[in-house]
């Protein structure tokens, strides 16, 4: 029984992969891979000549994710270090509760905040014509992935034995020197895991980016351009396609693509952690 629980994870992963693949597979034969992956033309509903290029969507997903991580990683890891090393007990407990609350906000609420709060804020601050754009989505994703990074990162730092800290202090190191020279090297696996979980969350997130990024298919030229992501495309269009149509199948192919991207991220994470460990 317990063995069944253990291997059920594998069964589920393969099951999901199988069904997604089965829906998308019939289109694989007809597919022009270079056009599919690199063309920015996504015109699936055209009566005469539909085009299925997800280049712009890939760029959209990656750009929003990268920007979100550029915001979230310094904040998340900084907060983790602060919570674990620098703040008092009362502050620590309060912060942890608040951060966990932050993690519990549903993504559609984040999307709502993006539309109603960040949108006018961005328009006012940067004098851009629209506020639902890459920056908006990235800020939301950053806010959503920071709680994960903080709690996993804090766990990683907490796992560093106190004797290391004491040994460092006994050698005349300041608290910052301990953070830089002992804790970060000692906890780097855990911190890397924290960052990559954040990345995973950001890539997979759908609702918030659907609402906040502007949802227009194009390759962005600045952070104020609206973009559309892979996930948002599936969410927005799958309901409008007829089952088994080309469009339907391509959306499942996008699903496979997303699957591959997250798989690659996880694989890289695993290799990185292992590489780090070996040294």
């Amino acid at each position, binding site marked *: 029984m317990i063995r069944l629980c253990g291997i059920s994870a594998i069964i589920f992963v393969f099951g999901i992969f199988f069904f997604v693949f089965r829906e998308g597979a019939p289109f694989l034969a007809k597919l022009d891979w270079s056009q599919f992956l690199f063309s920015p033309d996504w015109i699936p509903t055209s009566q005469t000549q539909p085009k299925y290029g997800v280049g712009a969507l890939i760029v959209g997903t990656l750009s929003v994710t990268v920007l979100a991580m550029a915001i979230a990683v310094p904040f998340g890891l900084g907060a983790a270090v602060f919570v674990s090393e620098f703040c008092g007990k009362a502050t620590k407990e309060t912060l942890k509760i608040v951060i966990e609350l932050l993690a519990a906000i549903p993504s559609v609420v984040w999307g709502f905040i993006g539309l109603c709060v960040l949108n006018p804020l961005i328009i006012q601050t940067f004098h851009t014509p629209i506020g639902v754009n890459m920056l908006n989505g990235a800020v939301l994703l950053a806010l959503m992935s920071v709680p994960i990074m903080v709690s996993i990162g804090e766990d990683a730092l907490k796992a560093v034995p106190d*004797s*290391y*800290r*004491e*040994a*460092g*202090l*006994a*050698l*005349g*190191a*300041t608290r910052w*020197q301990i953070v830089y*020279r*002992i804790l970060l*090297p*000692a906890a780097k696996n855990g911190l890397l895991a924290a960052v990559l979980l954040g990345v995973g969350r950001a890539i997979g997130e759908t609702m918030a980016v659907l609402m906040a990024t502007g949802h227009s298919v194009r390759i962005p030229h600045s952070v104020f351009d609206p973009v559309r992501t892979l996930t948002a495309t599936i969410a927005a269009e799958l309901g409008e396609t007829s089952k088994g149509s080309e469009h339907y199948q391509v959306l499942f192919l996008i699903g496979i693509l997303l699957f591959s991207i997250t798989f690659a991220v996880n694989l890289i994470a695993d290799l990185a952690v292992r590489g780090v460990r070996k040294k």
Partner: protein
Amino acid sequence: MSCAVKKIEVKDLRLSYAHREVLHGVSFDIVPNEIFAVIGPAQSGKTSLLRCLNRTIDFCANAFVSGTVRVDGEDVRELRNVYELRRKVGMVAPLPVGLPLSIYDNVAFAPRCAGISARSELDGLVEKCLRQAALWDEVKDRLDSLGTKLSGGQQQRLTIARALSHAPEVLCLDEFSIAIDPVTTMRIEDVLKELRSQMTIVLVTNLTQQARRLADRTLFLYNGDVIEIGSNDVIFSGHPANRKTYEYVNGIFG
């Protein structure tokens, strides 16, 4: 001792954890370049006493200290720069704590914290400290491997090298031989004898024979009280002032 200069001056030091007092007014002086041993059974406050000297006692949130500890005439509890004090008074813990860094980085840790970054200077320092701790020959080919992968005895010598790396004026050793074999212990004891020309050594030990071999003077601490303090000639003479001392060093009670 007739020597007028005092390296460390401890007066009526009392220490409690929460409300339990573990040191009941300890007083003693240590003069420069002597090896000063502290002996006594477990739980008598030896480690706590050491930790008061370089204020690593600060890490215990519930510790309360009264009385004075002066290093070079300065009260350590009124110091501004506690980091400098800890570099001046080095500490070797009973169980080696290899930082999760390479052997090289372990030894270079304190100098780097003190602001030395020139590679050539660090190289020299690392080699010198590892040689002093009688470890150089065993690790010189693998300075880049993790310090935590060394054997227990090697790690202990690594912590000694690390403690020497910030050129302390006082070196405190807390039962350094607890995790290492007798041969290595003897090697380190030889090292300590050489080091005494450069620094003052405070040696906390469970082994009365070790105190006898190494120290100039010995303090017998029992349940937080100083029972006797005197030169080794007296303490180990067979007729020290206090009967308890005699019984302890001769293994009659303990």
